[in-house]
């Protein structure tokens, strides 16, 4: 049964990707892209990577889809410009060459377990029992800290566009009350993902993606780009806490980001909490498209 399921899934992924690229109508392309993100999350789940599946569905399909739709609404006319066929040939060839190189790289991977036994051997000392969280927040924490800094830089770049344009606001009293109903549940869900990330699929990025979705919902249905959740302290909290923990560890005699023995678990939770807040704030800023306004509530 499962090879048939996988074959259907792969075929659907290719069909949706083709539909997203056809460019006949921008709206159709975006909808195909969102569906592609959803099925890509399913593909990750089939590859037994539930953390990536969660992040792909929340950010790749959800928030990116919202960003594309807002961008399209702000374009004049919303019509894609068709380039002549000759101009599209070179990018197409580059994509085919890139695909060939990636396929060769994947097929040339040596047989074996890869890094899994190494991670499993050191997992007890990492402070968590989910191997993905251990790698992200302990063994390769330096990379994650720099990723958070990149997100902060992206938010600064969006701030440079100027004040966020106001959104039209709630299209009726029913939808105006909807965020008040759903945002608390989403915040609770984000806390749930954060807490479960230590031992189950979850963690800071998934919690941050849910918080970002809550921010998008708020901006869209309340019509304001509020400074309550898009201010500089929230945006900087993730990288700041990460760097502070790293420097504190160095000050206590270890190397940079070498957690003191026995403190790994609580430190990882503290870093993940700050990171989730930052990621949610960055995603909300990207959706708002500019600096939050002082004149709106």
């Amino acid at each position, binding site marked *: 049964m499962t090879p048939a399921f996988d074959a259907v899934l792969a075929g659907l992924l290719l069909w949706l990707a083709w539909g997203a690229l056809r460019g006949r109508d921008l709206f159709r392309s975006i909808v195909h892209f969102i569906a592609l993100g959803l099925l890509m999350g399913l593909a990750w789940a089939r590859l037994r990577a539930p953390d990536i599946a969660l992040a792909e569905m929340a950010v790749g399909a959800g928030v990116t889809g919202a960003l594309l739709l807002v961008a399209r609404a702000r374009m004049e006319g919303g019509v894609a410009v068709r380039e002549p066929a000759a101009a599209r040939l070179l990018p197409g060839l580059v994509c085919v060459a890139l695909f060939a190189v990636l396929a060769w790289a994947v097929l040339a991977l040596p047989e074996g377990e890869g890094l899994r036994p190494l991670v499993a051997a050191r997992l007890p000392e990492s402070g968590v029992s989910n191997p993905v969280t251990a790698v992200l927040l302990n063994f390769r924490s330096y990379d994650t800290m720099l990723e958070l800094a990149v997100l902060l830089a992206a938010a600064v770049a969006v701030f440079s566009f100027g004040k966020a344009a106001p959104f039209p606001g709630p299209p009726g009293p029913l*939808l105006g009350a909807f965020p008040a109903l*759903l945002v608390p549940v989403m915040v609770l869900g984000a806390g749930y993902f954060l807490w479960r990330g230590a031992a189950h699929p979850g963690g800071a990025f998934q919690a941050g993606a849910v918080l970002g979705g809550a921010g998008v919902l708020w901006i869209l249905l309340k019509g304001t780009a509020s400074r309550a959740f898009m201010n500089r302290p929230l945006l900087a909290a993730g990288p700041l806490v990460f760097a502070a923990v790293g420097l504190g560890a160095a000050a206590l005699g270890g190397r940079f980001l070498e957690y003191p023995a026995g403190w790994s678990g609580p430190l990882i939770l503290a870093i993940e909490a700050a990171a989730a807040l930052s990621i949610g704030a960055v995603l909300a800023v990207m959706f708002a498209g500019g600096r939050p306004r002082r004149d709106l509530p």
Partner: protein
Amino acid sequence: MPDRAVDVLSVVLVLGGAFFYLAGSVGLLRFPDVYTRLHALTKADNLGLGLVTLGLMLRADVGGAVRLAATWILVLASSAAVCHAVARAALGHRLEPWKRP
């Protein structure tokens, strides 16, 4: 024996949910205007999801069953809001509801 009965019941429920999803998709393809299509999608798909969730809850432990039920409730709320928003937008674009000729 009770295990077997629970298994059969869960499969029946999931298949019933799949049937309602099929009905919703047929409605999406065959109904004449956006309002009737919204009706087919939200009603049939939510009922289908409810049946699938019920079938899966029979196989899960208590914690998993509670999470599945919470997922269904959240999908109900969000799909109702989205259906409302799309219908309002369609009215805003002055799309007339289809009338039987």
